[in-house]
């Protein structure tokens, strides 16, 4: 049995010159750590789904990536986290949307898959399901905060306000932009 693993930490417009050498080194080291965590599972004969969870949990714990600790802020200044996991040979799947107090959303998604008849639970329903599960760690919503994400929210809201002002000043009303 040959194994393989691929992971990502998000795609976006991150110009190379915007990353300091130290930042880039940190990003690469964390990706390598996540890769190693998943690959360790595979090398000892563990199932693919364990490898996926192991890799993602490393990235969820890192403040540099937009999942778990370090997740972006929503327009209300809080965090709503989503996750899904799927097992190919059985087509079993589990997902959660809009959870606010679950430290590892991927772990809760897997619990939905393994311990409920459902595929997806959202918001308060997902939180209530988490209440029934052992080993689902809970944290205050502010635990996900990071200064970098706070700055990004402030910048996004400043731009949004500027765009709204531009529309009021006589735009053609056909602005292609995304406001969440």
């Amino acid at each position: 049995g040959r194994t393989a693993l691929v992971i990502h930490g998000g795609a976006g417009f991150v110009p190379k010159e915007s990353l300091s050498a130290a930042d880039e080194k940190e990003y690469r080291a964390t990706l390598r750590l996540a890769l190693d965590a998943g690959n360790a599972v595979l090398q000892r004969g563990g199932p693919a789904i364990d490898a996926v969870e192991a890799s993602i949990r490393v990235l969820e714990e890192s403040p540099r990536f937009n999942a778990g600790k370090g997740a972006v802020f929503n327009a209300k200044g809080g965090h709503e986290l989503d996750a899904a996991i799927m097992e190919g040979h059985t087509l079993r799947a589990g997902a959660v949307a809009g959870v606010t107090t679950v430290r590892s959303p991927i772990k809760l998604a897997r619990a939905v898959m393994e311990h409920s008849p459902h595929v997806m639970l959202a918001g308060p329903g997902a939180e209530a399901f988490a209440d029934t599960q052992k080993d689902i760690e809970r944290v205050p919503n502010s635990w996900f905060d990071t200064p970098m994400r706070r700055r990004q929210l402030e910048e996004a809201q400043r731009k949004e306000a500027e765009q709204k002002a531009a529309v009021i000043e006589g735009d053609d009303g056909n602005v292609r932009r995304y406001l969440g």
Partner: protein
Amino acid sequence: TVGAVALDKAGHIAAGTSTGGMTNKRWGRVGDSPIIGAGTWADDRCGVSGTGWGEYYIRTNAARDICARVEYRGDSLQAAADEVINRIIPAMGGDGGAIALDRDGNIAMPFNSGSMFRAWIRPDGSSGVAIHE
């Protein structure tokens, strides 16, 4: 957004995705990540985790579309992933990337947004980490 796709020694594939969504998103907005078939998919020959403008991944059923192309048409994983991520989604106005893995251990990592943080280990043991390149 973060994600992972794995192939184990039994030949089984799994995929997962976790995200905080988009900065300044409207509260209650759900992106593609938890939508099975849009941002996350795995079957017995292919797995995908996406990252990008979620509404487009939902509307194109992006992750499942990649694997369906492999399953129904016999497309290579690379061709299927490139078609969905780098042609169909941008043609609609979306952007982003995805990681994909098939049961032979082939890996595809297309993206069209300038960068995608990613890492991989192939069946031959070769591995890498990349951001922009």
